[in-house]
């Protein structure tokens, strides 16, 4: 191209950024496998395959070059995030359907990379959650807590064909998440300290889940250090969640879980570092990012405590995605030489 200045550039490409995000997910995934077995790997593989195939097909239909848009890695990030958000023993068609929804309705109807208004992974997740509430709330319990040891082959069997195993085995493998459990037990007027004596609770959040969250945290810190994501979003989100929980917890420790529990359970860490940091659907101004993080944290807390769903991240993120353009236009920073 003619007359193109600047003639020099120095920036990591979109692919590098996206693959670094994937890399940062690895510790969390490794710990996931350690605590829960290989189910999550199956889901990730299925999701990745679905993404590559669907995106190639869509790009071909739209007559766009396929290679650069597959290699940009954004589809894989979406797929992995979805795979990590759904229960690891959900049947195979859940992840395939979810990924299709993400890629089609979250991403490509809006024009693909860079144009989506909503976080694609959360679009898919939310549709799955309201369509298949039972499957989506049956989470696997950590392998070391299972009464009968379950082979990893069984996990794969459950994922690939749930009829192969008896209902008892599945029931033995799964339970509600700690957040879900607290919610249902609280309605039975159980005090919190009794509820939390259940074996599914660990030292911080849910047993096993807290480990995974620590893995995500490590990956998130790597992304922060490498300046792939800015500090505004995770910091504002986590501090708001922590302090809101702290206020409620100190007000009534019997009904409101501890702030650390809120931060370390559910998808809080994944959300803070990987989900709300999707640059396309989040505000871009520094101030806007802070408002965005704060608002999502508040909504997550409200939905967790007062709402109908045990976990509110997907809804909170989608809800705030709606606000992103408005936040952007209202939080324009002061321009050099302007008042």
């Amino acid at each position, binding site marked *: 191209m003619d007359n193109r200045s600047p*003639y020099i550039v120095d920036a990591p490409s979109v692919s590098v950024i996206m693959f670094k995000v994937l890399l940062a997910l690895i510790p969390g995934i490794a710990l996931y496998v350690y605590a829960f077995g290989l189910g999550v790997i199956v889901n990730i593989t299925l999701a990745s395959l679905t993404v590559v195939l669907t995106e190639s097909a869509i790009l071909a239909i739209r007559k766009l070059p396929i290679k650069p848009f597959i290699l940009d890695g954004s589809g894989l990030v979406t797929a992995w995030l979805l795979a990590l958000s759904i229960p690891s023993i959900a049947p195979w068609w859940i992840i395939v359907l979810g990924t299709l929804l993400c890629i089609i309705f979250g991403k490509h109807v809006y024009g693909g990379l*860079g144009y989506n208004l909503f976080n694609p992974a959360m679009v898919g997740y939310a549709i799955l959650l309201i369509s298949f509430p039972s499957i989506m709330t049956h989470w696997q319990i950590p392998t070391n807590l299972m009464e009968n040891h379950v082979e990893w082959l069984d996990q794969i069997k459950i994922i690939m064909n749930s009829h192969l195993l008896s209902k008892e085995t599945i029931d033995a493998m799964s339970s509600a998440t700690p957040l879900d459990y607290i919610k249902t037990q609280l309605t039975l007027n159980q005090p919190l300290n009794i509820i939390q004596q259940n074996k599914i609770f660990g030292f911080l959040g849910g047993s096993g889940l807290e480990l995974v969250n620590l893995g995500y945290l490590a990956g998130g810190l790597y992304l922060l250090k490498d300046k792939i994501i800015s500090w505004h979003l995770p910091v504002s989100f986590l501090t708001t969640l922590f302090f809101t929980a702290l206020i409620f917890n100190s007000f009534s420790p019997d009904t409101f879980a501890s702030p650390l529990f809120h931060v370390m359970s559910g998808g809080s860490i994944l959300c803070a570092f990987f989900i709300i940091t999707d640059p*396309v659907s989040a505000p871009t101004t520094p101030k806007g990012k802070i408002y965005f993080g704060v608002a999502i944290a508040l909504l997550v807390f409200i939905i967790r405590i007062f709402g109908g769903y045990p976990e509110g991240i997907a809804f909170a993120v989608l809800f705030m995605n709606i606000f992103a353009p408005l936040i952007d236009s209202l939080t324009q920073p002061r321009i*050099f030489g302007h008042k």
Partner: protein
Amino acid sequence: MQFNNIFKFNGGVHPEENKSLSTTLPIARLPIPKKLVLPLRQHVGHVAKLKVKVGDQVLKGQIIAEADGNISAAIHAPTSGKILKISEEIIPHPSGLPDFCITIESDLKDKWIEKKPIAWKKLDSAALIEMISSSGIVGLGGAVFPSHMKLKVNQNQSIETLVINAAECEPFITCDDMFMREKADEIIQGTLIAQSILHAKQCVIGIEDNKIEAYQALKKAAQKTSIEIKIVPTLYPSGDAKRLIYLLMGIEVPKEKRSVDLGIQVFNVATVAAIYRYLELGEPSISRIVTITGNVQNPQNYEVLFGTPLSELIKAAGGKSNKTQKFIMGGPMMGFDLPSIDVPVTKAMNCVIESSPELFPSPKPVMPCIRCARCADACPVNLQPQELYWFSKSSQLEKAKDYNLFDCIECGCCTYVCPSNIPLVQFYRYAKSEIIAQDKAKEAANTARERNESRLARIEREKKERAERHAQKALGAQEKISDDEKKSTIAAAVERVKQTQQENIKN
């Protein structure tokens, strides 16, 4: 390196400097070419008014085109010779379109017109500015704004500080650097002259910390003066006037205001030296230092007469190798492709880079914007480049304007850090020139509307007057010429025209 009292602006980038390429050799002088081509528009403002005609003999330093009005600059013959032609020639402009130029055939005698040094110490500011207005001196940093206009200060303004811009922040360019090393005295003298004309209370020279030799030369030359020399960190675009003022003084020049309104005036080092040469030696602006660098064999700085064909300079530096695709005028951040190597050297030409695929690899594939806001972090004006891009790309020009597109200085930092390799600056240039064109069209439409309205009003008035006259005449007199007759002639003419038109269409 310690930086005292430096105010950092937002963003900025630090590309590889590549300055040492062209600083190994001293400034050389290019031999007088056979033919010189001088565009009439080498400065911001009105085109210079022609003072010669084809066939005239001119002497070196003779005015060949004079300033037309205040915002304009004169053009002098860079050497002695004959006016060969006055015609449209390709000029170093991103459009690649031709413009009016004077071509001089040099007689190689290089005979000066009588030089008239000016006893500037005895004259007051107004008189000096009047004289400088025919010196042809414009901002040699690249802005090419007529310098006498910058020395003029309104009654209600007073200049506190004179800032001398020695930052030269773009990679590759070293013309100011080498000039400072070799002609520090001239710069300091020129600075003192400018300071006294402006009645500025203090004077600061801002220089980046990658030009230590130049800094030391200036320091030595400025020993006995009150001029302060401040080192600023090497960070592009610290050489942008408003950024430099902020770096040095912590003052933000507000939007739509000039630094003069705040009592600050900025000159480039080469510009003040040119003022010195004009007043002290009586030599008008006929040459400048040009860096020729990049893929040439001997990257170096040359003192080049204006109008010298670029090809001469390239030849001297041993350029135009096979790998070369193009030549870039200016630095790699804000420069542009030269339309041809036959363009003349002009007052704005500070640097020419011979491009090669190794130096400037062809741009990587462009991906969509992912709104990562790295550009916003790098923007020295604190704009939101991703939004400006979004609006420019979809031609939502009003919106782009609302997001302060016109505050953009086109420095290229945003493009430099863009992970999607989007030519952001190109989009801003497009949007800006589109808006300007639309505004111009709107203005033209407004004049047309006014003219149309006044015409309609006139017709209305005439009709009324005629009616009145008729009413008076109707009492006795009869009409002299029959209106019908007139009408039929016109109708016939119209009919004829229509016929010819139809025939034209058929053809």
